[in-house]
C-alpha cells in the first residue's frame, strides 16, 4: 500500500474515507454545480459533466458568491453532496457552509494539493489531526 500524508493548516468536521475527484480549478456551489443532479455543470469547469456525489473533492480555491454557505446544508439534506472538500485555499463562505452543512474540510497545504493527489485515489480526511492521507 502506498501511503502519503499531507498536513492542512485549517480543518473542520469528521473523519471520512472515499475516492477523490481532483482538478486545478475553483469551487462554488452556485456557479459550478447542477445541484439537483449532482454534477459539475459550468461548461468551463475542468470537472464539467462529472458527478461529485460521495467524492472527496480536491480543488484549488473557493470561488464565487455567498450562496454556498446555505447550499452545502441543502445538498446534505438530500444526500447529493461531496463527501469532503480539500482545497489549497478556502474563503469564509466555504467554511461557513461546511460548518452548517456538516461537510468535512481541509485547506492550506505546503504544496499544491491538486498536483499531489491522484484523481480517483482513495484518501482519508482526518480533520481532528488536520491530515489528508492517500490510502490506496
Amino acid at each position, binding site marked *: 500500500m502506498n501511503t502519503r500524508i499531507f498536513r492542512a493548516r485549517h480543518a473542520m468536521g469528521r473523519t471520512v474515507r472515499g475516492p477523490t475527484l481532483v482538478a486545478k480549478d475553483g469551487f462554488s456551489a452556485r456557479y459550478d454545480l447542477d445541484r439537483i443532479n449532482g454534477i459539475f455543470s459550468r461548461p468551463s469547469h475542468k470537472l464539467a459533466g462529472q458527478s461529485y456525489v460521495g467524492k472527496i473533492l480536491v480543488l484549488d480555491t473557493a470561488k464565487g458568491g*455567498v450562496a454556498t454557505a446555505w447550499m452545502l446544508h441543502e445538498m446534505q439534506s438530500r444526500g447529493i453532496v461531496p463527501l469532503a472538500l480539500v482545497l489549497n485555499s478556502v*474563503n469564509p463562505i466555504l467554511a461557513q457552509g461546511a460548518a452548517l452543512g456538516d461537510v468535512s474540510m481541509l485547506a492550506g497545504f505546503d504544496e499544491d494539493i491538486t498536483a499531489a493527489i491522484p484523481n480517483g485515489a482513495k484518501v482519508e480526511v482526518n480533520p481532528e489531526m488536520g491530515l489528508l492521507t492517500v490510502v490506496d
Partner: protein
Amino acid sequence: MKLTDEEIDILAGKAGPVPQQALRHQIKVGEFFGAEDMVPVTQAHLMADTESLGEAGVRWLEGLAAIVDGQRRVRIPTITDPRGTDFANADLLGQTSAMLDLERRAISAFEALGVAMTNTCINYQTIQAPTRNEHVAFGDTGVVIYSNSICGARSNFEGGPSALAAGLTGRTPRYGFHLPEMRRATLRIHVEFTPTSLNGWGALGGVIGRIAGNYWAVPVIEGIEGAPRSDQLKHFGASMASFGSIALFHLAGLTPEAGKLTDVAAPGLPGLRVTRADVDELQRSYHTDDQVDVVVFSAPQLSLFELSDLAGLCDGRRFAVPLLAVTSPQVKPDADRMGYTARIEAAGGKVLSGMCFYQSYAREISEAMGWKRLATNSAKLVNILGGYGYRPMLASMESCVDAAVSGKLART
C-alpha cells in the same frame, strides 16, 4: 478563542438557545481561521434566497423562529439581500406556487427573528453605507467588496448563516479583513484603460478578479483616470468579487485607505498591467451568439440613476423580446414616482423589485420561459449564469436595449 464574560454566558445558554447556537457556529468558523477573539459589529446583511436555502434551509430557519426561550431576535440592525422573487410579477418569470410558498415561509421566519426585509444588494446606496473602520457582517459579495473598498469598512464575506449569527450575537470572529494587516495590498495592477460604460467597468473588474484569483488577494490598482461614480464602482467591485472571490481592493489616490500607494503597498510588490485589449477580450469571449431570447439588467440591482438612463433609452422603442430591469424596494417607488418605470414598461420592458435575477431560480426560469441567450450589461451576471445553462452575453446598456428591439445583439 478568547471569549468575554458575556460570550461565555451566551455559550452557556444564559441568553437562550438561539444566540447559543449562533455563537457555537461562529466559534467553529473562527477557530477554522485561527481567530483570537470576537469583534463587535454594528450591522448585518443577510443573503438567504430560497433557491439557496431550499426546503432544508427554510426548515432550519423555522426551527430557530419557533424557539420561545430567551432572546431570539437580532441585537443589531440586520437586513436582507434580494429575495428569490418579486411576488407581483412571479408569473412573468414562470415561477411556481411551491417556490413562492417557500419564500413566504422564509420571510415569516426572518420576521419572527427580527430581521428587516430590505431585500437589496445595494444597501450602501439605499439604506445606510458603513463608515471607515466600522466593523460589519455583510453578505452578498458585491456589498462586501464595496463596503470594504469604497467605504473603508471592515467585513468578511458572511454567508447567510453567519450573517444571521452575527445579527443574533452582535459580533463576529475577528479574522480576515477585520485585521489591519490583512487589508494591505498583495499585488499591484496598473490599468492602461479607464472604462466609461458600466459593462466596461464590470469587465475590468472581471479581468482583475481572474488575475487576483482568491479571497485573500488584495489588489491595489493604479492608473484609473478621473473619479469613478458609485454605479461604476458597484459593477467593478461586484464583478471582481464574482470572478475572483475578491473582498477588498484599493484604488491608489482614490479609496480611503490608499491615499497614496505606499499606504497599502510594500516596496517591490509584484505588478501586472491590464490593457484595453484584456477588457475587450473578456467581453468578446461572452459574445457567443447573435440572437437574444431575453435582456436582463440586474446583479447588482439598478440605482435610480441607472433606471433613469434606461428609461431614456426606452423612449420611442418597442421590444421584440422581453426586457427585465431589477431594482430594490427602496428605489422602485422613486422610479415609479418619477415616471421611469412607466417609460421602460411602455416600450414593453418590466421593472422588477426586491429580487435579483440569478437568485431567483434562474435554471427553472430558463426552462419555463425558454430563455437561453441572455444579454446584459452586468459582468457579474454573465459570470454566474453559465452554470445555470444560459448563454449569457455582455454588452453595453445601449446595445442591450437595441437587442431587445431587434432580437439581435450587434457585434462591437
